């Protein structure tokens, strides 16, 4: 036999491949039953996560919520839940889900070791009572207040403190925002302006530091102005001040601004 005798076989094989693919992909494709939540479409994933939070809000069973979240293999569950809470609080879902998501995110996040905050570079004091209280949140204290969390009088600067923490390699402009009841408020946009430009950031994106917390990396020797959209007055002349390390060396310090809504 020569190669021409095998041409019909080759053609038949091609037809066979075509038939096989038709059967495998169309007539009898692999059926996707018994799937896991991690394979869900994005919108369903978000609904599922919101439902985990809502169930947690009802039961308070953090271990069960964590077990359910583990199905999704989230890299940073607290941050992802916070971001989802912000989207939901902006109108994409029931307000109760946003509150539950924020609550679960806050409870998942580990509270920070109290920062060393100084009025002057040399003296070290603990965080303010309001900040310390948020380190051990209660359900009522950290829940998203409402769908319109910034309603009410404009935020005003309550405290402005220099922060000396050698572990911070970059000086930070740190902001904490609380409502009139002292509850931290996530999702607040904070504008930062300086001679050469401007930027903005949001509170709540680092839930492990508190859902009312946000920060911005400062450049030493640059003077900033900080403004909240609902703020009464801009905070001017914000600048990194030098701190002194244990060995006597100097390093750029951070600044903490604490805003709060005044009581009516």
């Amino acid at each position, binding site marked *: 036999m020569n190669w021409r005798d095998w041409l*019909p076989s080759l053609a038949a094989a091609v037809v066979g491949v075509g038939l096989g693919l038709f059967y495998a992909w169309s007539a009898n494709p692999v059926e*996707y039953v018994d799937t896991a939540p991690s394979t869900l479409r994005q919108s369903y994933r978000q609904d599922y996560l919101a*439902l985990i939070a809502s169930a947690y809000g009802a039961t308070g069973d953090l271990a069960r919520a964590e077990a359910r979240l583990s199905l999704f293999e989230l890299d940073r569950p607290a941050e992802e839940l916070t971001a989802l809470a912000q989207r939901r609080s902006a109108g994409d879902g029931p307000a109760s889900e946003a509150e539950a998501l924020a609550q679960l995110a806050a409870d998942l996040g580990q509270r920070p070791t109290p920062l060393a905050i100084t009025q002057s570079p040399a003296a070290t004091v603990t965080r303010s009572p309001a900040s310390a209280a948020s380190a051990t949140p209660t359900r009522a204290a950290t829940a998203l207040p409402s769908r319109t969390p910034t309603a009410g009088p404009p935020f005003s600067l309550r405290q402005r403190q220099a922060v000396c923490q050698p572990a911070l390699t970059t000086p930070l402009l740190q902001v904490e925002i609380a409502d009139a009841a002292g509850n931290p408020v996530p999702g607040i946009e904070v504008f930062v302006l300086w001679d050469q430009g401007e930027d903005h950031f949001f509170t709540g994106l680092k839930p492990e530091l508190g859902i009312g917390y946000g920060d911005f990396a400062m450049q030493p020797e640059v003077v900033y102005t900080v403004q909240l959209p609902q703020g009464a007055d801009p905070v001017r002349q914000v600048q990194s001040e030098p701190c002194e390390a244990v060995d006597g060396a100097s390093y750029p310090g951070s600044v903490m601004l604490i805003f709060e809504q005044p009581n009516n």
Partner: protein
Amino acid sequence: MMSISLVDPRVRIALGLIVGLVAGLLYGWLIQPVEFVDTTPDSLRADYRTDYVLMVAEAFQAEQDLNLASRRLAVLGPAQPHTMVETALVYAQEEGFIQSDLARLENLADELARRGGTPEIGGP
């Protein structure tokens, strides 16, 4: 007795067809199957479906919003919400869920049956 020989062109064609068919099936089912992403909740495995329904029941316990519970259940398919909850309840009983979980499922099933919760959106 009939002998099979590759000299026969019909044998060669049949052989080519079989080899091609097997290759196509292997490629379609094993090497490059349909992508396993973007699934919908109605395809969830029974234990995940039951846990989903349980979460709806847990949330309902606090929210007392039957419409919201019905909407959440609607993504599991076209069945009536109370049927889904009853199915989940049967599974939960068979699998030995704790009593408080069973009570939540029973409560939601009762509320749906009593107040006739109807999903406001269709299934996926």
